[in-house]
């Protein structure tokens, strides 16, 4: 990416994005997930299930969510390694799922995202 950010302060009366909250790399990556998923404890499901505490859990087991038959019977566990492969490209892990997601190609971004998911746990 080639966005050049230097010199903006000389032009704006206050620093650019000064009011933008500080976001970790994982929180930034989460922006791509939040239309489909909630992350806070006891938040409801959207088109995808709530993911509070997801790291380390068995796949297809959140109460109150209708999974695809494929995911429900997959026997997968959302350990970090599986999450990493899934977030990169869901269909490389499982056929017949319903997660419409283009994937994150950058390994560091995936790691940051998984760290962020892991932080939202009991």
């Amino acid at each position: 990416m080639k966005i050049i950010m230097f010199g903006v302060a000389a032009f704006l009366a206050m620093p650019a994005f000064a009011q933008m909250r500080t976001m970790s790399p994982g929180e930034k990556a989460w922006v791509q997930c939040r239309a489909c998923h909630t992350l806070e404890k006891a938040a409801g499901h959207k088109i995808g299930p709530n993911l509070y505490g997801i790291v380390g859990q068995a796949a297809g087991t959140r109460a109150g969510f209708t999974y695809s038959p494929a995911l429900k019977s997959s026997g997968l566990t959302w350990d970090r390694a599986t999450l990493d492969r899934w977030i990169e490209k869901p269909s490389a892990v499982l056929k017949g799922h319903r997660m419409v997601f283009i994937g994150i190609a950058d390994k560091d971004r995936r790691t940051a995202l998984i760290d962020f998911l892991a932080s939202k746990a009991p």
Partner: protein
Amino acid sequence: MTLNRRTMIKSAATVAVATALPKAAMAAEIHDVVVVGGGLAGLNAALNLADTGARVVVLEAASRVGGRCFTADSVDGRPEYGASQIGASYARVLDVCRRFDVALAPGANINAPMCYVLDGKIVTGKAWASSALNKTVGAEREVLPQAMSGYFLRKNGHFSEPQDWLAADARKLDIPYRQWLQSVGASPAAIALINSGLVDPDVDRVSALALMHEHAYALSEMDSFGDKTLDRFEAYSRISQHVVKGTSRVPEAMAAHLGDAMRMNSPVRAIDMNNTGVTVTCTDGRVFKAGHVVMAIPFQSMRKIAITPALDGDIGKAVSSLSYQRQSQVFFHIKGTPYWEEDGLDASFWSDGPITLVRQQIGYQGERELVTTLAFGDKATNLDGLPPLERAEWVMAHISTLRPSMKGKLEPIAVQSWEEQPFVNGCRHSYMPGQITAFHEAMTVPHGRMVFAGEQVRRLAIGMEAAMESGEAAAVQIIEAV
């Protein structure tokens, strides 16, 4: 005094004195991001950015938001000029509707079944396979005209999931649709039927790859959520939803939340970028400065904006050559005794003539009050040669010739053509053969301080969801850079 956007605007003069900004900057509004375009893409980019605390301004040229979401509120029956179907996988559209309490209900764009008019003669769906008007060959004969394109796409489907269309080895399908149809054994008659009903200009001027992506997405929704016992079109319209009070309510709710970030009636005339930031100038001389700009308007609208430095390379090619579909619509109220009971034929019809579709809408309470006629591509442009009133009268007379039971049963209530719509001048984009290969990727990456959004910058989704997805991606590109 706390410096925020409001106080900065009011005290621009004080700021200028304090920091010796050049005179032009005294009158400028200053933000983190300028979003050009208040359709779903621009609004979603703005929402995602505003949610992080970034200071955003959205410049919309028209006096309404929504772009190609356009509910005709002033027309009886409140028809949709644009988008109406919210697919089962449209996660981002569903999310904003939930977030802003925009009521949805099942079903979308449900129309009465069709009969067919070819060479001026009517044939029913049941009689199609054995009709002499049906010149298609072999198994094709069982396929209804409006389903012919989908028949070949499904039979020879390449993609197990929608994003496969972006893979390098899919590029070999970036060829004229006609060529691909011939390669999979479509007869000349089948190709002629597909050509006649195409929304894209014609089978030579649209990429097979683009159509395959759209088909793959719709099919993936059907596989995930659809009732496989129903006809594909019926099944699809039943897993979709519609906005109870009209599609425009969605962009309106997003804009309401953005509040004073919105600037209506603000067409852009120039965008200047350098290593310190972006200066966006409206046609009335108002100036907006920011660190970044999101272009969420049709590329053909962008061609009217003086951008410096000029966009060159693949993105320059994209902006200068991407074309848009044409769709000319006339809306009629149905009156008198039901014409479809009089002639005993299905209430809608498909035609190979100057008007491709005459659709009788079935309302969500079962009402049968509205007929919409649709012409695409060159047929739309030809039709638009007539001014609106004459156009409606011509269409009415034409329909009455094709189907006499409809004579005297139609009352024109609205005329709308996307090619004539100010600031839009077309409906959705249309990829010509080779364009995806030439410049799709360039559209999906930032160019200096400028990022691109809009349904044309589609990645996975189609329709309204593609617009939302592109806006989200544009916001992410800027968030990641900060």
